[in-house]
């Protein structure tokens, strides 16, 4: 089922959570709402679920206006960050809840409830935990049970509010891959909220980047990473080096250094911000055209890449560079060593 939201507006006191947001969620896609805390992503999810009412605007399910439909009738599956499992019920009863609370006329027989619950528990690979209570499970197991519980009512939409936010790094990684596979199996329209760009990149078909209640960009993970639409997106998705510059006739001037800005060919002397990703910089021990002379200030070898901080003349901030570990052997990277840094890719945003 597809979802459309139109001109949603929501404020909490003086705080604007959503500012005239319109979005389309196509059938069967897994969409991530990505943004820093306070950007309105959870509010948007809760409005789609019906747990929150918008001040203005509408929500449509498959073209039908659902703005005033009660949560109970929306048929959405909602997964909470802190699981929200019913503590006093066993795993089985938790998963069965959505079926057992139905009015008598539409309630399945006990036999078919039992069958359905076990199917779902098998789907989340936790059938052996049916008789346990939530407090006897690990965080990752609890979130899978919460998902099985949400799926039990055969929702047309699955909404996940920071589903892996409360889990530790390792479990998080496993679970998000597992969620992706599950989605490929079920093809249910899903929206999940996250502040973790890596998570959004890995799991989602499409990412919506939100900032201060506004949509910054909508696109595939590749699109968002390679063609960020605004300085905010560039900054939010991964680490960046930032330079204040002036763009003039296709070049961004930073002091007496310049970066190519062909997309701003016709611009004359305008303030701009230049971004360079740490992995878009080459290091060399010999000077060359377009290289910045620098000194090594710090090198971190903990991890899969070399992280190097360089001091240079263009600004007071250190220049962050990431290199493959193999480069360790080719360069003298002792603190104080002289190197030449050459940006291979940059992005320049004019300042308004």
């Amino acid at each position, binding site marked *: 089922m597809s979802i459309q939201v139109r001109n949603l507006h929501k404020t909490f006191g003086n705080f604007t959570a959503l500012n005239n947001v319109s979005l389309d969620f196509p059938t069967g896609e897994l969409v991530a709402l990505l943004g820093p805390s306070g950007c309105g992503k959870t509010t948007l999810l809760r409005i789609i679920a019906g*747990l929150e009412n918008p001040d203005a605007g509408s929500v449509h399910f498959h073209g039908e206006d659902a703005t005033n439909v009660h949560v109970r009738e929306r048929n959405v599956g909602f997964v909470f960050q802190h699981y929200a*499992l019913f503590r*006093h019920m066993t795993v089985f009863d938790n998963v069965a*809840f959505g079926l057992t609370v139905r009015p008598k006329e539409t309630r399945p027989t006990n036999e078919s409830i039992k069958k359905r619950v076990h199917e779902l528990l098998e789907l989340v690979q936790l059938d052996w935990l049916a008789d346990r209570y939530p407090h006897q499970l690990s965080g990752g197991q609890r979130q899978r049970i919460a998902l099985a519980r949400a799926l039990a009512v055969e929702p047309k939409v699955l909404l996940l509010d920071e589903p892996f936010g409360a889990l530790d790094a390792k479990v998080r990684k496993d679970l998000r891959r597992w969620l992706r596979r599950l989605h490929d199996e079920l093809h249910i329209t899903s929206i999940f909220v996250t502040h973790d760009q890596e998570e959004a990149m890995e799991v989602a078909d499409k990412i919506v980047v939100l900032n201060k209640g506004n949509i910054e960009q909508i696109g595939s993970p590749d699109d968002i990473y390679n063609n960020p639409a605004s300085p905010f997106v560039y900054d939010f998705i991964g680490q960046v080096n930032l330079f204040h510059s002036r763009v003039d006739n296709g070049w961004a001037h930073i002091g007496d250094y310049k970066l190519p800005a062909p997309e701003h060919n016709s611009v004359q002397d305008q303030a701009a911000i230049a971004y360079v990703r740490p992995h878009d910089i080459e290091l060399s021990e010999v000077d060359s055209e377009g290289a910045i002379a620098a000194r090594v200030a710090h090198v971190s070898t903990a991890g899969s890449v070399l992280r190097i901080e360089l001091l240079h003349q263009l600004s007071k901030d250190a220049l962050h560079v990431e290199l493959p570990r193999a480069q360790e052997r080719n360069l003298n990277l002792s603190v104080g060593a002289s190197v030449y840094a050459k940006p291979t890719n940059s992005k320049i945003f004019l300042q308004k």
Partner: protein
Amino acid sequence: MAGAVSSLNSRKTGAAHAATSEATWVRVVLISIALTFLALFLFLPLVIVFTEAFAKGAQVYFAAITEPAAAHAIKLTLIAAAIAVPCNVIFGLAAAWAIAKFDFRGKQFVITLIDLPFAVSPVIAGLIYMLLFGRQGFFGPWLGDHDIQIMFAVPGIVLATVFITFPFVARELIPLMQEQGKEQEEAAITLGASGWKMFWRVTLPSVKWALLYGMILCNARAMGEFGAVSVVSGKIREQTNTLPLHIEILYNEYQFAAAFAVASLLALLALVTLVLKSLLEWKAAREHELAVRAASAQ
């Protein structure tokens, strides 16, 4: 320096906690003071209540608690508690629900207001009802015209009891429900539960121990209340006497054995309350511990 180290080592009081625990004599003195106080002011009176109650033999004891006036007082006390406790359960649940699950203006004021009966003297509570419903009171003439008697009658006693016990259930539930938040309820309604089913199957089970605990305290207070009830009852024997009032009357009439016999009933109630209270506290603490462990487990 060496001397200091050796003296630390030579100390006999539990080596592991030597740095934080007090000297033996301090502990002995503190514990003795506490125990002496408890014995003098709590345990001794309790023993005296029972010894005095049986001072003239078991026959007098049973006669005292079965004679019509006593029987009536027991009945009236039970009626007052039987009305006050359910009233406060309903009120407590509603108030705690409203405070924990909704945001509204003046929430803090409502919380403070709930504590009012704890803050005012019960006698004043009684007098307020007198001013409202008494013959010269605010509603007095209207009540008189319609032949409704509230003061010096059972309704007045029930009203005073409800007022005095008003905070018990609400105060137990509010912090718990605030801590639990509303996620479980939200989960229940997204799964299609009606408001009623959500309440019975999710909200109530998650607060049941606190609710029972509040009910027990509420009940104990309802049965033992003296001050407010004393003002509104008029102390008419076999009509408006509750147990505590009956005890006072017996005592004033120098029927000590009978007074203590009836008092022993209230003392028993207190003991039962304490046992139940500890049981529930233990149970709730255990569940809380499990919940906390569950929350921190990954």
